């Protein structure tokens, strides 16, 4: 079992995903860069091309972000 997994990872068949935090940092930076360059809202595809991350990883990282956002929100607005 361990062998198959190791084989797949070494082979690049399974992408060893970066941590959400690393992805997040990449995404936030890419978003600012692209937004400045294009002067408009960025699509998920553009972010994927810019960061080299799968759109799935971007959706995941954005979700992690909203959770952090809502934790930072004051409770009595």
């Amino acid at each position, binding site marked *: 079992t361990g062998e198959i997994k190791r084989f797949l990872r070494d082979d690049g068949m399974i992408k060893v995903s970066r941590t959400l935090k690393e992805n997040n940092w990449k995404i936030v930076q890419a978003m600012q860069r692209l937004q400045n360059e294009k002067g408009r809202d*960025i*699509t*998920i*595809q553009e972010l994927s091309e810019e960061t080299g991350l799968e*759109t799935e990883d971007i*959706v995941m990282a*954005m*979700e992690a972000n*909203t959770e952090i956002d809502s934790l930072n929100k004051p409770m*009595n607005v």
Partner: protein
Amino acid sequence: MENKNEMQIVFDARSENEGFARMAVAAFISPLNPTIDELADVKTAVSEAVTNCIIHGYQQGPGKIFMECTVSGHSVVIGITDEGVGIINIEQAMEPMFTTKPELERSGMGFAFMEAFMDDVQVFSSPGKGTRVVMKRQIGG
């Protein structure tokens, strides 16, 4: 995407599933290549509708939430339904700031957010039977 793509989800009315519902819709519509803002808008609307089912529909008790999403061309339609207490006066419920649970965060702004973030929001409800919200949004085109 040329033709219609559909999904239906049934899940337990628990606050930990709010993130699941939001992500499931985000993942389902991401082949449309939404912008980051479009994605955030749709997720917020889904969150508000699902929270309403949990808090108001089922009064935080057990129950099932039914969600469907249909994509055709650039149009996204999302239905979110509970079999909870229902709403007596829908028009009043949809007024900004109207709430029957004033102790909650963002009180009374759920429907206002759904209407702000989606192109169209319709609410159907029968007291004692449940509530259904259908929201539409044009994405990426």
